């Protein structure tokens, strides 16, 4: 099973503009109860200057995917069991730890959900932003300091000279997240991985941070892999989207295409469970049941026990669906892929947003 690479996103890779290409990635955790297949055959591509949203609910494997790309999966118990992570053509899986350190924080940077826990409380904001500059680039302390203040200004942190000497606890949640972003941008990375960057923030502050990320991406021309559970965040900030469920992708495509015509019952279910501000107070169509444990994925289609389309059809129970293109790829558009035997039926389902 491991190592086979037949699925759509992995195959449809003409290269060229693909900055990051993940192919059939499998990241497993060995536990007392067995092997947890947290990431179980994930393939996607992040193109240069574009934003890909990786969306899914807790436990679907989206954060482990991000940690795998940065080779930050705690091992043991975790391990990248198979697959390739091509970054500018180099397979990150095979790099030595030393080579990986040159990539991490330099070419690929990350912003985490909890700015409080990702900043070191005993160092000033400025010294933490300069750290990456001093580590990856040949700069003097004075140059690093000047650049740090400039970065803090760039992320619209008020009074950047003073904030550089502040400690994390002296900053509000929104300001801490801005400082984190400044740290991530220090070495002008080609790829920014943002894992739920706004989840811990208040709504009005979250909106500011999303605006900032969009602005910086346009200015720096970097690619962004945005990991989130929020379909609204995906709609507002991404060019392409990949929906993850139970360790693998169930749907991917351009953001407008996926929101206009979702092709997987899970994606449809996510849309229908969202409360809207619409005029009518309709009953929410919840997805029944819960996300399966990565220790025991259901046989056949992993979503079939919760699926409104399956309704006990034998094929869903027995045969694992392929990740297939439904709308033929044309031009610059990424192909619209779905992992559903009955994706043609899903396409007919009316979804009100």
């Amino acid at each position, binding site marked *: 099973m491991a190592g086979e690479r037949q699925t759509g996103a992995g195959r449809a890779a003409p290269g060229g503009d693909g900055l990051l290409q993940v192919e059939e990635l499998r990241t497993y955790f060995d536990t007392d109860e067995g092997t947890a297949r947290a990431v179980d055959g994930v393939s996607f591509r992040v193109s240069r200057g574009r934003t890909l949203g990786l969306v899914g*609910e*807790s436990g679907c494997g989206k954060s482990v995917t991000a940690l795998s790309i940065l080779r930050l999966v705690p091992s043991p118990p975790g391990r990248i069991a198979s697959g390739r992570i091509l970054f500018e053509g180099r397979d990150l899986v095979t790099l030595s730890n030393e080579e990986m350190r040159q990539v991490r924080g330099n070419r690929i940077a990350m912003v985490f959900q909890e700015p409080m826990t990702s900043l070191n409380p005993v160092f000033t904001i400025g010294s933490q932003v300069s750290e990456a500059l001093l580590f990856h680039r040949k700069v003097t302390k004075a140059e690093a300091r000047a650049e740090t203040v400039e970065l803090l200004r760039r992320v619209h942190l008020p009074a950047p000279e003073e904030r550089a000497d502040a400690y994390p606890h002296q900053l*509000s*949640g*929104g*300001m801490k997240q801005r400082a984190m972003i400044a740290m991530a941008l220090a070495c002008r990375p080609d790829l920014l991985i943002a894992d739920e960057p706004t989840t811990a923030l*208040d*709504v*009005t*502050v*979250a*909106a*500011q941070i*999303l*605006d900032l990320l969009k602005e910086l991406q346009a200015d720096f021309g970097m690619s962004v892999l945005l990991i989130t*559970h*929020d*379909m*609204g*965040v*995906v*709609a*507002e900030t*991404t060019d392409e989207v990949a929906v993850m469920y139970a360790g693998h992708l169930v749907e991917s495509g351009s*953001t*407008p295409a996926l*929101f*206009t015509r979702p092709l997987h019952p899970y994606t449809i*279910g*996510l*849309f*229908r*469970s*969202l*409360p*809207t*501000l619409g*005029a009518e*107070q309709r*009953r*929410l*169509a*919840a*997805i*029944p049941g*819960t*996300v399966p444990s990565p220790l025991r994925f259901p046989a056949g289609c992993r979503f079939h026990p919760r699926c409104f389309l399956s309704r006990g059809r034998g094929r869903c129970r027995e045969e694992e669906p392929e990740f297939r293109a439904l709308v033929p790829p044309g031009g610059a558009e990424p192909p619209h892929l779905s992992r559903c035997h009955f994706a043609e039926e899903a396409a007919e389902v009316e979804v009100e*947003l």
Partner: protein
Amino acid sequence: MSGANAANGYLVEVRDLRKHFPVRAGVFSRLRGWLRAVDGVSLGVGAGETVGLVGESGCGKTTLGRTILRLLEPTTGDILFAGRSILPLHGTELRALRRDMQIIFQDPYGSLNPRMTVARIVGEPFAVHRVARGRERRRLVTQLLERVGLEPEALDRYPHEFSGGQRQRIGIARAIALAPKFIVCDEPVSSLDVSIQAQILNLLEDLQEEFGLSYLFIAHDLRVVAHISQRVAVMYLGRIVELAPRRELYQSPLHPYTRALLAAIPTIDPVSRRPKLRLPGDVPSPVNPPPGCPFHPRCPVAEPACQETEPKLTEVSPGHFVACFVAVRSPEG
């Protein structure tokens, strides 16, 4: 103060409620100031009604919910249940009141005792109020679990064996055990995934219909609040800045803060992305709230008067209240 108590017949009503916490610091714990978590709130919840309470962290919505239940003692103001003040109650009377007023917490992990079985957790209200014991209690608990969508097998299991959504169902079963009339739902779905969130919202709606419950539904997510509530109150730094029927609140919001909250919600429509109104800065601390209108430092339409005088919550159209000089003057916006 406002028209919130103009119409009588509320099941639960608070009048000019304040809850201030002392802020102490230093070796001698000197009093450094007061945190005005709730600072003059008047609000009523009708029988069978859901009133939503929305705001960002530190706005006082959780403190308000707990003070209404007297889990916290108010600094000043009054709380009425079925027309009678509950502030003089204590001992047996207060315990009796707890049968009518319940709470569901945000964190289904922290609010269930990990060393107790589900049978004990959900059966505890029966024990405290000496309603049923032994086999009869177990039968009632089984019925409750069934009502919230849990199998009888759950009885002898422990909280950690359940998912977040199932734990929230256990918390709901405990809250409805003694057939209360009023439940404070404090961010009941905030820590849940969207698909599970929808299950719990539907369950709360079903229970309301079945038992004629009244809810005070507290959340930071305006989408969730607007979905479940008939009326919505928006809180900022301890005050209600706008109160309106749900439809009116999102169709014609009047307070600049409400407008910003609505604009901050990402639209589920990737085709119509457009620049939006954004509030500068962060939510200020309730320890030293700004003078005048508490919102003026972040307000896009603030005037000199806003820095000096605090606007009162004023009814601008039937049932629609707003605390803003500018909005009251020209409610068309």
